[in-house]
């Protein structure tokens, strides 16, 4: 009789040092692991469900303003600092980690129209309805000191927007015309006009830092070069654009938020046709900001929602709303690509996660691997109907839902009518106009 005894060679499983990774023997023979597709499908389904379960994007609400928040500015050097200006001329500096206001100053009489932090992060500029541009120190004044601006420029007309150059002491304002200012001078070094009397927003290109773009009240978007004496080009659209934002990673793309509920991404070299039309909002889009990675952007709308769009997609991937959030006037995407900050009519600033289901904080390596794997699975099975349904499901307030439905019906009706008209008219007389071209009136050289 033979006694069988387990006898293993410890060479195979004992670590040489305790720092070594434990050896986990695996057999990758596919015969031992059958049904790989159904198993991965189940995993993907579970991952998608869990993602929805954990999707809790709302982080905090910063209250303290006594009027609607009209503009916000990110600090260029500190992630935890946010500046906000309200409709009563008050500017507040917030500490986002503590979620509290660290400083309040009465900057203007009337609205604070625009605000921007200097590239060095030591001071910031504000413009207001009182026709002034003010430069403020970033640090709060010491005890006993009065809160006074470093510099005040009195303009002739009301300024509606403001942006600072990426590297030089130059900033741009817009109002009746677009002005380029040197920080050291009290009069603009350059003014651009092109037959329009009011601009609503101006933005420097963060990559090609000499370029600017502005939105005008005559439904146009105008491009400028700081070094030239004349504007470059403008495109006139069907409705007015409210704000504009350049892609921080792709020099020639910018996106504008329009009154016609859409956002348009343009290639600045070809203004006659937007690259993509982003649709989903059901009311005018008021503000837009790109993520610092340039892969996505977030838009704030009059319909009381925030939507996140991938740069190259026509529809949003995410919609955020709360019962108490009113018309969202300004929006910012934090510089570490993790958070979104929205300022709305009802005097609050809200902080959201950029990825709703993301776990905040440091991930352990295993966690990270699991997240990556789940992400990959979701991506792989994204076309499967169940997964697609779950991942795309969002709750919407009834008003917005019905409005969206109505818009859909209207759009369909228009389309049908156009088809009918085309059918009953001489071939060639009713041309097919693509959605992208529909919203452009003309390009003026």
């Amino acid at each position, binding site marked *: 009789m033979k006694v069988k005894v387990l006898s293993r060679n410890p060479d195979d499983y004992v670590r040489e040092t305790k720092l070594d990774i434990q050896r986990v023997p695996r057999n990758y023979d596919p015969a031992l692991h059958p049904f790989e597709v159904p198993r*991965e499908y189940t995993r993907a389904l579970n991952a998608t469900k869990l993602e929805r379960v954990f999707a809790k994007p709302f982080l905090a609400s910063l209250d303290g303003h006594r009027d609607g928040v009209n503009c916000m500015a990110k600090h260029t050097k500190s992630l935890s600092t946010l500046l906000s200006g309200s409709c009563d001329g008050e500017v507040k500096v917030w500490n986002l980690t503590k979620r509290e206001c660290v400083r309040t100053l009465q900057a203007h009489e009337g609205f604070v129209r625009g605000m921007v932090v200097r590239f060095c992060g030591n001071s910031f500029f504000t413009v207001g309805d009182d026709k002034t541009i003010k430069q403020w120190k970033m640090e709060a004044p010491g005890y006993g000191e009065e809160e006074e601006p470093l510099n005040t420029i009195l303009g002739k007309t009301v300024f509606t927007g403001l942006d600072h150059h990426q590297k030089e002491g130059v900033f741009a304002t817009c109002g009746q015309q677009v002005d380029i200012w040197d920080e050291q001078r009290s009069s603009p070094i350059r003014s651009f006009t092109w037959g329009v009397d009011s601009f609503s927003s101006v933005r420097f290109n963060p990559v090609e830092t000499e370029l600017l773009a502005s939105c005008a009240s005559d439904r146009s978007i105008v491009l400028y070069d700081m070094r030239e004496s004349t504007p470059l080009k403008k495109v006139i659209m069907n409705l007015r654009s409210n704000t504009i934002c350049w892609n921080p990673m792709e020099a020639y793309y910018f996106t504008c938020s329009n009154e016609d509920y859409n956002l348009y991404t343009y290639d600045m070299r070809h203004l006659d046709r937007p690259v993509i039309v982003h649709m989903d909002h059901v009311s005018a889009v008021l503000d837009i900001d790109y993520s610092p990675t340039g892969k996505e952007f977030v838009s704030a709308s009059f319909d009381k929602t925030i939507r996140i769009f991938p740069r190259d997609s026509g529809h949003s991937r995410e919609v955020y709303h709360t019962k108490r959030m009113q018309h969202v006037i300004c929006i910012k995407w934090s510089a*570490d690509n993790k958070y979104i900050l929205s300022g709305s009519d009802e005097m609050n600033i809200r902080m959201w996660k950029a990825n709703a289901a993301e776990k905040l904080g440091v991930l352990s390596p295993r966690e990270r691997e699991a997240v990556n794997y789940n992400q990959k699975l979701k991506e792989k099975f994204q076309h499967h109907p169940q997964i697609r349904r779950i991942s795309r499901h969002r709750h919407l307030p009834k008003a917005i839902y019905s409005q969206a439905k109505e818009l859909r019906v209207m759009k369909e009706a228009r389309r049908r009518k156009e088809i009918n008209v085309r059918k009953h008219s001489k071939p060639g007389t009713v041309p097919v106009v693509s959605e992208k071209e529909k919203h452009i009136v003309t390009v003026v050289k």
Partner: protein
Amino acid sequence: MAKISKKRESKKSRKPSKVTNKTTPVKPEVSYDDDDAEVVSEGDENITSEEEEDERKHQKLLEAISALGGKKKKKLAERSEAAVQMSEFTVNAEGEGDKIDLSDLIGTLNKTPAVPKKTKKQLQNLQTKNTIESPLSKQESERIQRDVAFQKSAAEVSRWTSIIKQNQRAEQLVFPLKQEPSGRRPVEKVVCGWKAQTPLEQEIFSLLSVNKQPINDPVLTPKEEASMRAMSLEDARIRRAELQKARALQSYYEAKATRERRIKSKKYHKVQNKAKRKEFLKQFDEMVKSNPAAALEELNKMELSRMQERMSLKHQNSSKWAKSKAVMAKYDGEARKAIQQQLEINKDLTEKLAASLNKEEGEEDEDVGDPEVLPDFVNDAETGSDPANPWMRGKLSAEPAEKEASDCEAPSVAMGNTEEEEDEQEVEETEEEALLREFDSRRKLRQSQESDKDPEMCVTDEEEAEEEHEATATDHPDTSDKEEEELSEFKSLLQGITDSQASRAEMPADAEPTQTSAPLEEGLVRIRTLEDIELLGQEEAPTDEAPAETQEPPSTQAPSSAPEKAKRKRKRAIDVKDVLTKEAKVIRVPLDPTVEDAEELDEKDGQRGLIKEAFAADDVISDFLKDKRKQEDAGKPKVVDLTLPGWGEWGGIGLKPSRKKRKKFRVKVAPPPPPRKDQNLPCVIISESRNSSACAHQVSSLPFPFKNPSQFESTIRTPSGRTWNTERTVKKITKPKVVTRLGAIIEPIAREDVMKDLMKNQKQASAGKHTKGHVDSKNKKKHMNKKKTVTAR
């Protein structure tokens, strides 16, 4: 002065007519952005229509003026308003062209002799020269400026195209883009930005400065620098020359060494090594005579190397290469040879130095060497209960392999269930065979043939050999009396062990008489020399008496003489070969488990029987077949009988519709379906109908980026989890597209950085080309070398 004024006048007066002429061709090109453009174009039309009339009037006027005699020209010299002539809309004042010009008189001037030639010439020049074009309108010029500026900035921006595309296509982007290189920075840089702040640091710095110690680069004290400077020029030159020479020599040697090292020919190296060894031996012999101390040192060195060899696994056939060769050895003569060579190297290295020193002494040396080795294995043998497991033995894992290689130091203990033992036995056998050959020259040839034939034959040979050897051992105990005496103590030591082992070993041998390898494994003693064999024989003679007697006749013919000793030496070489041929037999080893398997089988059968019993009533197979039949029938098209009894003929009880009618009204509804997929698969039912519950999870249409279904399916089919992929692959597959660092501000992409990187890349690319070329040339050289070696072979 008068002349000049005239000229001016003429210029001015000429202008309007010119303008009217000029504007007409220009106009159609211009298109204004505003409503003004239309107005302008209307004006244009008017002008063009009136042009001919103007011409006629002009002619008339000219005639009139010539008749008048040119007195009224001063009136015409009035200043015309530029604004009127060149209004924004380039519309002319009415009647401007009708006035008389000074230029009209030039023709007459030519004819009058009073005018000097110079002025005539000047006038002519004026006539031929073009006037300056009127400046463009403001809108137009601005438009052109804008266009130019836009083109410029568009071109500037277009530089980003490649970078943007690259980033869009990138599998992974890590933000922030501009990351500081990890790792340590050079000391100088760290020191540069550092200042002494604490009092301690300041003190240290002050001390350093007082003693004139260097703080930054270069790290030399002034004294050192002075001494550096002190060397005279001539000295320096000589020194430099020396250094140069040394460097050159070194480089030559290096080049030579690398060249030689790079030669891949084994033969070359073998020959070289052999030559070296020979030379060394020669020197050594001399040294023994001349300088015994140095010789002793050399000896020590050799001893050390031997020890190292014994410790290491280098030539012990335990490496991956050796294992692979061992597998190949069965079929491949070269592999066999290679293993043999390695073994030989090992043997050479582990051989006692005394033996290597004076080879003439022959076997005696080996015998002498033995007792020294023996105590080791005696110790080993007792401790080992599981020879495969080095941990259980409390010895290095290298040991079993070493034993196997170094002529079997440890005795075979357990039954034939491990490779090493088998090998050991084989080695034993070979020795025994060698011995046999000594005694039995007649059988020698046949034996060697058999051993080469195949492993199974070898086993039988082994048996025979063993038996024979035992026989010889029993018959001739007196041949090696001397050695016996030498080993008396050892024997006494062994006696106890062997007895116990033998008794243990015999048990299984009895239990499994069919097993061929069983009788070989008994015994604890490693057979290394004749004496050992003898010893074995003595001990086991009583157990194997019968076979020994049968084998007696050949063994009696064994005379021990000098020439045969020499033969045996030669055999030794062959023996190693035999070892190798039998190594291939290793595969055949696990014979024991078959019995166990049988047991297991029985067990299984028992279980099966149980199951059979339990489900005796269920006739699963017939149920399945029925099911299948049912499915098949359901799939077949049904015949519908539409005959209505009583229509067109008599109806009633007992009357059936006629056959003709029935034939006519029996209708097959659908054409027969295509053959079922499970038609030829008796044990399978394949349902071809759509499964609605599964359908909800399936993709109904081809998703966007994919061109064809197979492409999509293949992406779905490849699993990405770690159940199916290695760790590295999983990491690679599941790499996220965008990686951001926690708490890092992501700055917009900066022109300077990217452009710098681009420049760097370009530079590297250009540099890379050069280096590549260099490498290529090197490779070529290598190839050349290879070729040379090939030809040499």
